[in-house]
């Protein structure tokens, strides 16, 4: 075997032999992501926790305050009313999403999983609001619900319900519910998609087997499909819970402003944090109280996630499909 072709190959080969690579490339692959993530995500979270344990002085320095800020937030009448009201409003928001958004998502997903004609068109269009900025969504609904424009009244009029119309966003009694429903309108696409995917992953044989066992459409849904997608419903619930504390700010801030108008009826933890941190009207900004509120949100989310992991996740074992 000594044709010229192979000879050149052997030359190339003997030129220089590289050594097996060590572990440097692993560091190179990981370092940038770990660095950016640590500096701009993990460090700020930890730093916020730290700041919440200090108090600012007039001259700009900080002194150790222990848990004083937390005590202030929870028990000082000035803060406590705001805090508990915001916390309560967040819970209401969560509750409305759980009883309206997620069942609606389940219903839509269940119907879509029957593979009706135009199914993918429905799916695509229902997801549209989810893509829009909360700010845009907020304004769209503000305009539509505005008594000035009168679109809602006209629309209700066409089905003879014009008398029902109220400036819902402006009324203390209905503002929070209205904001929640707007948010449901925007985000129902997410549970719908997640549940739809879970339903699709149930093997056809299983459904056929149930049919052979004599179950009809409804009982198949309740007795076979629903138990199998419970883990997904659990994930939807925890995502709703986490999102509730962050995303609600954008919507409320753009519709009702940082004070959670009308008269704090829609004030949530997010707006409270923003107001505290930056100051509003007479009140000056306070980073330490801001950090305290953020940390409280962190703990509240942590509690929710722990409950989910400990309770829900353990019960809802995944079935191999």
């Amino acid at each position, binding site marked *: 075997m000594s044709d010229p072709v192979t000879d050149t190959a052997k030359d190339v080969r003997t030129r220089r032999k590289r050594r097996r690579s060590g572990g440097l490339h692993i560091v190179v692959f990981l370092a940038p992501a770990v660095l*950016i993530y640590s500096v701009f995500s993990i*460090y700020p979270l930890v730093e916020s926790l730290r700041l919440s344990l200090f108090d600012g002085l007039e001259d700009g320095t900080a002194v150790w305050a222990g848990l004083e800020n937390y005590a202030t937030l929870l028990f000082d009448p000035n803060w406590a009313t705001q805090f508990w009201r915001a916390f309560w409003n967040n819970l209401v928001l969560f509750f409305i999403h759980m009883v309206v958004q997620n069942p609606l998502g389940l219903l839509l997903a269940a119907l879509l999983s029957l593979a009706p004609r135009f199914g993918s068109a429905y799916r695509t269009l229902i997801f549209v609001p989810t893509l829009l900025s909360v700010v845009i969504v907020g304004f769209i609904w503000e305009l539509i619900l505005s008594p000035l424009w009168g679109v809602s009244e006209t629309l209700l009029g066409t089905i003879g319900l014009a008398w029902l119309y109220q400036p819902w966003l402006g009324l203390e009694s209905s503002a929070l519910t209205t904001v929640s429903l707007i948010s449901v309108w925007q985000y129902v696409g997410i549970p719908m998609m997640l549940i739809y995917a879970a339903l699709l992953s149930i093997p056809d044989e299983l459904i056929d087997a149930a049919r052979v066992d004599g179950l009809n459409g409804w009982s198949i849904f309740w007795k076979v499909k629903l138990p199998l997608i419970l883990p*997904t419903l659990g994930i939807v619930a925890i995502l709703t819970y986490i999102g509730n504390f962050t995303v609600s700010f954008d919507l409320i801030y753009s519709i009702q402003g940082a004070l959670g108008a009308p008269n704090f009826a829609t004030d949530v933890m997010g707006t409270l944090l923003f107001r505290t941190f930056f100051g509003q009207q007479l009140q000056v900004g306070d980073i330490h109280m801001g950090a305290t509120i953020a940390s409280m949100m962190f703990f509240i989310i942590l509690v929710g996630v722990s409950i989910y992991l400990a309770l829900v996740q353990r019960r809802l074992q995944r079935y191999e499909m």
Partner: protein
Amino acid sequence: MTETASSHRARASRLRGLSTRAGVHMVLAGYTLIAIFPVFLVILNSFKNRRGIFTDPLGLPGEGTFSLEGYATVLTQGDFATYFSNSLIVTVTALFLILWLGAMAAHALAEYRFRFNTLLGIYLILGIMVPIRLGTVAILELMVDLNLVNTLLALILVYTAQGLPVAVFILTEFMRTLSRDIKDCARVDGLSEYRIFFEVVVPLIRPVLATVAVFSMIPIWNDLWFPLILASGDATKTVTLGVQQFIGQYTVNWSAVLASLSIAILPVLGLYALFSRQLIAGITSGAVKG
């Protein structure tokens, strides 16, 4: 994968009664209408003059009501070209970093055995559970120290940190399913670990990268919180913040408000029309696994 499943079910559903089918379509079509009607209404009215908007909000723009005055106001009064280019720079750069750094990290986690592999993996996806906004107080301080307030770079860095956990999570899951043989083969072919990543792994994960891209893009493009806090200066405003503040100033000029909303909506809808298949496939497959 859903192709056979859904055709199978389609057959099953065809067997069911006509009334059931009608009911299904009524609910789905009804809700679809609710979902898109408000958006449609805003875009429709943005092409009308003031009289058209108020006297006949549901009518099509026609003679005597058609007008682009709103768009004219928006384009002359607001600096939307700047806002757009800011949003674009921030979103594209952050996306690029998320995908690039996320894919590299995911590759390292999926491919190599090293100490703390699992621990590091958990650390990197922790951010899925804890919203980055809770660190805002310290992020602002950090940006002040770094002299990055009112720069697009501040937003880019924060969004990259925000997007990495989900990207790393999805990409790691996917990369674990790639065949080991093909990477080994490239090693035998003499590629360095870096070139294996760029020349073998990246082409294989391209479809998933696209999904992650669309996924990560939405919250960045739509965010109000960080532009408001970190970059609210005129030169660094993003579209979302720009629209928010523009509307704040022009509340009485309805054509302008509607036009500015439409300007913010239309590019998103355009992109969605292009990528919806990919996005939905991504959500569905991701959910099946996760």
